[in-house]
């Protein structure tokens, strides 16, 4: 209610306060010309201030009624319903999907970390392809934004994975066609590549700028259902002296990404690197970027070597129980660990 809370510039705020306008109520009763005279600004500026003030007071004024508070809010029951019916992005590995509750969840930020060569980028490319599985096959039929900070995105590899995915889709719809006489247009791997929007960022400034810009980009490309950031770490890890600044920038970026997931109902997948941490007299592996960063993501999945097997472990999640599942990286992409079960998971 205080004028001090209005989103206006410091000098204008100062003028308002010194002229005695301390509450929104006092502003609302002032006419633009009075205000302009009192605080010695042009009438245009006065109108602008009044507009902001009346907007703010409308928000505040509605405090009394419960219904108005609920603008943008949902009941837990509605949320449950929505979550149950929203399709998830399959990882193409049944075991991994199972522990993830069906795949990567839209509307959430998922962080995936692991040692070099464990398959983070592979999983990233796989998700960028899988998000395009058509709706009639149980996918999302969306598009993907792939942000490459490390230069490790290999288009040849994306093509391999896309080819495998197309084969699986046509096999699946061939089985479906017995029931529905729908003749689907056959997807082509090139269509899949065409729907991956690739950005290459070369510095952390570009990374932040891109995250800021994504909101506009996705408004123009509403079909985007997944944003993959590979990796969130790289630019923030090299040559970054001011740790407080780093934490703040990362926190801001995470908030913006989280806003995106809610606004556009899409999944954000952040890939992270690992670092060694000295605790209790021994070195332990942990995901990079520090402790405050680890609060930023909704889900955290760690990929690790368990003996000779690649495994994924749910390190943090508000809804899933911590569990681990084996997976493997094949020439066709991410698949189940057991070689017998190679079929892509649909539905």
């Amino acid at each position, binding site marked *: 209610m205080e004028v001090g809370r209005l989103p206006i*510039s410091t000098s204008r705020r100062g003028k308002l306060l010194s002229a005695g306008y301390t509450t929104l109520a006092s502003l609302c009763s002032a006419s633009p010309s009075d205000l302009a005279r009192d605080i010695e600004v042009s009438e245009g500026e006065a109108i602008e201030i009044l507009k902001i003030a009346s907007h703010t007071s409308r928000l505040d004024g509605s405090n009394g009624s419960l219904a108005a508070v609920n603008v943008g809010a949902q009941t837990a029951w509605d949320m449950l319903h929505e979550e149950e019916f929203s399709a998830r992005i399959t990882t193409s590995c049944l075991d991994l999907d199972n522990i993830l509750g069906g795949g990567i969840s839209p509307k959430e930020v998922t962080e995936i970390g692991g040692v070099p060569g464990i398959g983070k980028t592979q999983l990233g490319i796989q998700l960028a392809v899988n998000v395009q599985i058509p709706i009639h096959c149980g996918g999302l039929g969306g598009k993907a934004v792939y942000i490459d900070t490390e*230069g490790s995105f290999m288009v040849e590899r994306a093509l391999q994975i896309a080819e495998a995915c197309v084969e699986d889709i046509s096999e699946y719809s061939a089985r479906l066609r017995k029931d529905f006489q729908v003749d689907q247009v056959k997807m082509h791997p090139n269509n899949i590549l065409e729907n991956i929007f690739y950005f290459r*960022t070369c510095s952390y400034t570009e990374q932040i700028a891109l995250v800021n810009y994504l909101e506009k980009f996705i408004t123009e490309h509403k079909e985007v259902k997944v944003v993959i950031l590979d990796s969130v770490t790289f630019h923030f890890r090299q040559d970054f002296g001011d740790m407080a600044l780093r934490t703040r920038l990362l926190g801001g970026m995470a908030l913006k990404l989280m806003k995106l997931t809610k606004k556009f109902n899409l999944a954000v997948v952040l890939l992270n690197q690992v670092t060694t941490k000295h605790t209790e007299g021994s070195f332990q592996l942990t995901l990079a970027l520090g402790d405050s960063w680890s609060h930023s993501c909704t889900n955290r999945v760690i990929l690790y070597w368990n003996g000779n097997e690649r495994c994924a472990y749910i390190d943090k999640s508000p809804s899933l129980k911590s569990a681990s599942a084996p997976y493997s990286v094949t020439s066709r992409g991410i698949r189940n660990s057991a070689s017998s079960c190679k079929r892509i998971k649909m539905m």
Partner: protein
Amino acid sequence: MANKDINQMGLPKWITNIFTARNITTAKEVLSLTEFQLMELLDVGLADVTSAVAHISEVVCPPCQTALLLMEHRVRNENLAGHLPTRLKGLDEALCGGLPFGVLTELVGPAGIGKTQFCLKLSLLASLPENYGGLDGSVIYIDVESKFSSKRLIEIGMKSFPEIFHMKGMAKEMAGRILVLRPSSLSEFTESLHEIKVSLLQHQVKLLIIDSMAALVLGESDYGGPRQHPLGWHVSFIKSLAEFSRIPVIVTNQVRSQIRDAVCKYSFQAQSCAETKDDTARYDSHLVAALGINWAHAVTIRLVLEATSGQRYIKVAKSPMSPPLAFPFCITSLGISLLNDDGVELTGLEISTITCQGQNDVLNIDGERLWG
């Protein structure tokens, strides 16, 4: 782009002037501040700050390409679709054509395994004329350990590509394209990197080799520990060099023995850790790459060269496109060559371990000592 001047961004004149007056000149500075801080600093309202930040972000952020365009562009504009073939058939197939342009490829292995031999061969390949399958360009070879041998280079050339090297003047021309730099310290290296950036543009440089990256750091610090930071800047600089000039960059890395305590696990693996520690009592031969995990994240392709019971193997330990394959190889007067092209697919961790057992150190080439 990040350091682009705000004056040039097409913002409304009045707000550009305010930015200038507050001495905020680059996008980097603006994007490092929160909107609230900007409001305080610039003395303007939230709506103006938000739209200015959105505008700056849009100008600074890199252009969008679809993956399809990316692929078509590469196929159309680059020799061999952006790969330097190693002429090791199996390896080339696994890597979809060879060492890709624009990324870092790392060779890691114990001393004397053949890293430098591989580098020499690669620098010849890049300098060969295009009709012989080369890249027809110059090579910058940063020789930190002073192991570059021009005599050996010519020998490999003579034996592997006799049709070219026996042509009159060709040996001179080929060798003349390989530029060797010998920085003696990290700071010298840093300096030469800046110069290289310039010369990459001026000359037709098609390959950059750094042999070895580890020696630079090991030479500087007297005690090892997890060395992560000294190379931070270099890593991103070299990566951006590779990226913007679209050439392959080869770096080599040494090995060190694994310290027992440093067997790293995640905290949730702590229990299984205790069990495994007892039954793996073979730490003596356990080697790891000298540069730490941060470095390992930065390289796109890691090739491990190792020796197991007298046989040398080259393993694709990290690669975005290749399955984990191991190829037996040997070093002959032709340089490095594979014993078979099929490769053995390895499962699990085996692909990234480095062993050095029973390597027959005395490998004679024409009665001479072996080449490191």
